[in-house]
């Protein structure tokens, strides 16, 4: 297991480098001259040329990439000209808020998706199955940003049960219960789509597994049906569902962009949207890189988890 972990970590390095190349290329695609953008259209050509030299923009693209990569590795993601603070500081601060939200959503969608999938598989074609399947259909078709608005309207405006926005109350908040109260609506909203997808695939995986010979063997041994479903079938289905959860983690991280905007959550998604409209490109670049890198690492974790469950992958 340790050897495999090390191997996967080593294999993640080229992927991470690939991410930097893609981000670098996207940013190089940008039309216009950054120096002019910074100095404004009244800048003299000499000043523009000097700034270009300072920024290293007069070098070849490959050179620029390696200088940029070297800086990244030293934690230098540049400065956000809008916020006038190092990009890395802003990004890490915002990303921790996103992690709280996305983590809660991922937990919710995994738990409820798996439960719904198992229940619908066991009660195939029954009423529970039909009702859950109906909600799954709604879940995967509903725009999450609209659902968020509805949630605010119903649970924060009409029924004043929960706060509509932010991560903490402005006055007197800041503790864990306060955070949880603010977390409920956005986390549920963010989890809805992924719950639907996970439930669907878990149902399919369970139905497939329940037809296998080894399930018949378990029943022939006299194993109780609850145990057959929860232990024998679920574990086998989990092997197929874990990669799906990994993929959904990507959708949850991405979907956080909408949810953070709707619920004014001070996370990296909202930061990115603001940064795009103010054309604070270094901030966009840093944010995208950090989120993408963390997603690569998360996929690594799901991969290891799968290895832990399935002994066939270990040999």
């Amino acid at each position: 297991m340790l050897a495999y972990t090390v191997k996967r970590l080593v294999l993640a390095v080229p992927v991470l480098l690939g991410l930097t190349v893609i981000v670098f290329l996207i940013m190089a695609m940008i039309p216009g001259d950054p120096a002019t953008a910074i100095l404004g259209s009244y800048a003299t050509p000499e000043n523009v040329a000097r700034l270009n030299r300072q920024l290293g923009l007069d070098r070849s693209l490959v050179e620029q990439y390696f200088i940029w990569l070297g800086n990244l590795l030293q934690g230098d993601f540049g400065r956000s000209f809008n916020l006038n603070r190092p990009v890395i500081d802003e990004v890490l601060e915002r990303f921790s808020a996103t992690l709280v939200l996305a983590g809660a959503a991922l937990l919710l969608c995994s738990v409820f998706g798996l439960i719904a999938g198992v229940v619908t598989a066991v009660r195939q074609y029954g009423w529970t199955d039909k009702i859950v399947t109906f909600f799954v259909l709604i879940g995967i078709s509903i725009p999450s940003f609209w659902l968020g608005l509805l949630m605010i309207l119903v649970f924060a405006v009409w029924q004043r049960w929960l706060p509509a926005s932010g991560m903490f109350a402005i006055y007197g908040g800041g503790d864990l219960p306060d955070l949880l109260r603010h977390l409920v609506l956005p986390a549920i909203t963010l989890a809805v789509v992924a719950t639907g997808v996970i439930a669907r695939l878990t149902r399919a995986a369970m139905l497939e597994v329940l037809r296998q010979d080894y399930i018949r063997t378990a029943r022939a041994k006299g194993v109780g049906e609850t145990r057959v479903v929860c232990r024998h079938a679920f574990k086998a289905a989990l092997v197929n569902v874990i990669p799906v959860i990994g993929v959904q983690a990507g959708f949850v991280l991405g979907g956080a962009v909408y949810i953070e905007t709707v619920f004014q959550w001070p996370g990296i998604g909202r930061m990115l949207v603001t940064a795009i409209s103010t054309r604070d490109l270094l901030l966009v670049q840093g944010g995208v890189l950090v989120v993408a890198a963390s997603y690569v690492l998360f996929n690594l974790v799901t991969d290891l988890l799968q290895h832990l469950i399935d002994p066939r992958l270990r040999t």
Partner: protein
Amino acid sequence: MSGAQAAAGAPAPAAKRRSGRPSALSLFARNQLAAFGAGLLLVILLLVLLTPLLPLPDPAATDPVNRLLRPLAEGHLLGSDHLGRDIFSRLLWGTGVSLLVGLSATSVAAIFGSTIGILAGYFGGRADTLLMRGIDMLMAFPYILLALAIVAALGPGLLNALFAIAIVNIPFFARNIRGVTLGLANREFIDAARLSGKSNVSILLTEVLPNVLPVIVITVSTTVGWMILETAGLSFLGLGAQPPAADLGSMLGEGRKLLITAPHVSVIPGVMIFLVVMSINLLGDGIRDLLDPRLKSGALARPAPFTAVDRPVSQLAAASIQDDSVLAVEDLRTQFRIGSDVYRAVDGVSFDIQPHECLGLVGESGSGKSVTALSLLGLVATPPGRIVGGRVLLQGRDLIGLDAAGLRAIRGDQVAYIFQDPLTTLHPLFSIGDQIAEAIRCHRPLSYKEAWAAAVTLLDSVRIPNAAGRAAAYPHELSGGMRQRVSIAMALANDPTLLIADEPTTALDVTVQAQVLKLLDQLRSRSGASLLFITHDFGVVSEVCHRVAVMYAGRIVEIGPTEDVLSAPAHPYTERLIACVPRLGEPGRRLEAIAGLPPAVNHLPPGCAFAERCPHAEDACRAGEISLDGLNDRHLVRCIKPRRAAS
């Protein structure tokens, strides 16, 4: 056509055989949903196409006096927004824009993604590696994040949002299409086209493309809803459509600021996005079911834990007969109902097994021998299986119709099974020691540790070397013979009175077969258990069975002591089966195949089911029911003119 379907993965034949297709009702319901989706989408499309012709206010005409009117206000069906613009008009125009952008993004993604996929799959090698590594990199990004980065670079705008969403979706197409193309590239018809001198371009266009088209259509139908949702999302964030242009997303985004004072401004466009996406998803599911047989097989019913029993009431009250037999099966009938067809897999089977006795149950595949064995403890998959008659008396107690708890208490305790292929019948994710320990703990109140120790002892008794160490091994780490020994150890875990071995040696090498057979015979005689031994091999029968029953088309056609049946088979079918067995030391003997195939058990002829293949058949054989009659008190045969050799 066949190419793509085959590459998409045909359902495993074994799985197909065992479980039923979804009922006509559920298929209808599914189609109904798809039809509903198609209808809804059609209505929306019609509205959008007719929008320019409808007498609607200009969607951009502002009217500050009549701002934020509620729905159903005069002149404004759905009210007006913060600038007094008519929401209904804007909604229809916006829907048009959203659909157009979503469909364009899908087309761009489909064209580029499929091209990459086809090229990578067809040429393989370095081109494949290079293209797919690039695709992998794109997929390493969380979905929307990459779109954001692209929009950040290109600047906000509807067209840029379209490109961003299209680029982000290219990997899905590239991956799916590459997989299918890869399967096609090595097929005979592609080779033939190459040999006939066709150029790569013409092969790709005339041979490959038509075959991958269904997969492209499936991928489109499953991603288009998502892409409409995402482009609307970018507009919602203010990164897509820029005012005064509006799509559904930007309407929602603008209306958001008025959520508390005028919720309808943002709620209405949201409803529309939801309806569009849902109708497309429903239709997409329908298309996928239609084109992808593999996914349709996923709709198969799951087998219930116990076979359904549908037995005439008259048989319930019948008193148990007290005799010495361990098992007495009386007129057992098990059917499979698939659609309107009824397959009589077991059609009135009766036999008994005495203490310490081994009864062989012999027949070709499909003769009903396995279904007979599985029916005994209700292990036939329902649906489509169903026990419709007969009794199974275990030491005088009728097992059919027994409640779940009663049946479960017997399974693996008094009666234990050994199945054919231990690779598929042992759970791949649990260690063998754990699986045996579980079998023990189902019936005995032992701690896990004690049960594990017992499992090691059992593994030792089936001669697995280093049992204590091997107990922690997983099934895939053992050889076929070892795995079957594990199955035997598991079956013996609770000292059963009856062992049912369903072709336990068929999946093994010949030398291993002999070892396993010998072991099974030794263990059986040592434990004193009775054995129902199912096989298609008369050679095996002669080694272990005291008596043998021959099955054909769901019925026993001959039953008697092994020596009698082997030396003087009375039924022509038995005779032919025995002639199929090669004998050592008789290399010159001709092995006779039985002409023809066993009949399908859904349309059995009246009279003898073997008549069609029988060299001695005459008209009387096909006339009517033939009973199982005794040649002597132990040897019975279902034939109107049993072979002379019997006398």
